[in-house]
């Protein structure tokens, strides 16, 4: 296990530099003149330009600039938005909301996926199975840009079951509909994976042994099959976090939830480059760390992974 952790950490270091470098290069490659963009239409004198260039390290080479950006990221200095607010401060305010929304979505998706997945895995080809398969297909076909506004329109505005938008502190009731919408991003895949692995495990020898021992069917499925079927579902969650982050941008925008995605969207709309890059960098780092944790968890659960 120790060797696996070390190898995985080394990989993570490489991926960190690679991913941040790509994000940085995508954003800042051949920008015409950032200082002129900062000043707008006003002319910049040579002395002003010299001071600003020194302050923002613009007179350095591309790699030195990248180094300044990475060391900023590592020390928690994510820069300032164009409005002058430090990005770390905006993040500190927005994070809790997004984490709550994402966790809520993960829980809802997991409960539905595992529940329905086990049921349809047990009776493959039955009416329930067919219905869930058709339903997951429909859900897969609905991008969040379709689902979020429609859900808001139908359940928030026309039926009035849920609040159509969230307030500043975004309580759980206000987050329920957005979390449902966000959860649909991942529920279909999770459900299908659960279904397949339940169906596979039901044929395994240990299940036959458990049945032969005379265990109640409830215990065979609830303990023996479920525990082994959930391993692939857990790895999916690591991948899912990335999808959830992307989905949160649109969902938070539609439902007016003051989280990370909402701020990012506002950054895009107001052409706030530093804000967008700062937020995206932090999200990429969070995604990397979560994937690391999930991989380690997976290795702890399934010894085969460690000896690959």
């Amino acid at each position, binding site marked *: 296990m120790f060797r696996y952790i070390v190898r995985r950490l080394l*990989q993570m270091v*490489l*991926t960190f530099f*690679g*991913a941040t470098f*790509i*994000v940085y290069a*995508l*954003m800042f*490659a051949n*920008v015409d003149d950032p200082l002129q963009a900062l000043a707008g239409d006003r002319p910049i004198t040579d002395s002003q330009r010299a001071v600003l260039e020194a302050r923002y390290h613009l007179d350095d080479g591309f790699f030195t600039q990248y180094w300044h950006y990475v060391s900023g990221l590592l020390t928690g200095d994510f820069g300032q938005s164009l409005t002058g607010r430090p990005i770390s401060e905006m993040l500190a305010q927005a994070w809790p909301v997004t984490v709550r929304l994402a966790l809520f979505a993960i829980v809802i998706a997991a409960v539905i996926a595992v529940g329905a997945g086990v049921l349809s895995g047990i009776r493959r080809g039955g009416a329930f199975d067919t219905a869930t398969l058709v339903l997951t*297909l*429909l859900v*897969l*076909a*609905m*991008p*969040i*840009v*379709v689902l979020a*506004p*429609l859900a*808001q*329109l139908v359940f928030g*505005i*026309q039926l009035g079951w849920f609040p159509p938008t969230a307030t500043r502190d975004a309580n759980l009731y206000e987050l329920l509909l957005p979390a449902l919408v966000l959860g649909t991003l991942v529920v279909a895949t999770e459900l299908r994976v659960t279904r397949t692995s339940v169906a596979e495990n039901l044929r395994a020898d240990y299940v036959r042994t458990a049945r032969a021992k005379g265990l109640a069917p409830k215990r065979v499925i609830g303990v023996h099959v479920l525990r082994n079927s959930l391993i692939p579902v857990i790895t999916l969650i690591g991948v899912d976090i*990335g*999808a959830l*982050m*992307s*989905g949160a*941008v*649109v969902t938070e*925008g*539609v439902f007016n939830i003051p989280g990370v995605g909402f701020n*990012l*969207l506002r950054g*895009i*709309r107001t052409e706030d*480059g530093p804000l*967008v*890059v700062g937020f*995206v960098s932090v*999200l*990429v780092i969070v*995604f*990397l760390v979560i*994937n690391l944790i999930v991989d380690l968890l997976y290795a702890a659960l399934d010894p085969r992974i460690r000896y690959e």
Partner: protein
Amino acid sequence: MSDYNAVSTVEAPGKSRTLAGDAWLDLRSRKVFWIAAVLVVVILVMAFWPSLFTSVDPRDCLLARKHAGASGGALFGYDFQGCDVYAKTVYGARDSIVVSVSATLVAGLIGLVVGLLAGYFGGWLDALLSRFVDVMLAIPFLLGAIVLAKRLSADPQSNGIVAVIVTLGVLGWTTAARVMRSAVIEAKNQDYVTAARMLGASPARLMLRHILPNAFGPFIVVLTVLLGINIAGEATLSYLGVGLKGDAISWGLAIAEAGPYARTAAGPLVWPSVFLAATVLAFIMLGDAVRDAFDPKLR
């Protein structure tokens, strides 16, 4: 996969069947495939000849008609700028298809080259390319796309079509490359490749004539799925304001514009959504059916 084909050829002696031929025979008997195919054909016709579906110019807007309901001329009513929602939705198919098909081709080309080189040559080249793919996968798709699309679409004159194609293409090739790589590795150890190599075939000839045709099945499947993903991706980017813009007509743009007015007029929001979801659904179903046909093991 090759084992299955070997078996089926033995069962039907006298008539040799290719992988594509087998797949077609399998596809023909599937209901899902036909539903998807009909949907895709309708969407393609709509994309190439929108005037077959409507005689109204989607850019003929009149503020006086703002949010007017459905009438004889306008099936779905008018949006907040007084444009015909039906005409706009029909014309929206074109850019959507153009963008997603081109982006898929770009991604497919990059994935093909990277996967083929990494799989065939192996060694340090494979290690380097595979690490690069890992790094690309560490960036959540939409986040990377937002940054890149924002950078590319800075020019206020353009309608953003090229920017979105490049964005989706440059960020979407990783799965295709991975699948291509493993398919190539599987194919290059086959006996017929060794035989061709012993006959003195050059690496280029081996790759293009012998390995590629046999590694193509899974690759095509990935590209079909990618088409659906790219359609959704284009709509999402346009919705966020970093995709198509200006005089481009896009379902994503229409949804974004109609959102704030959903309380007064739901039609302009609902219809582009329905068309978008139906298109994505068609490509997902097509991808599912094609995958099952090309890879019997997955059934």
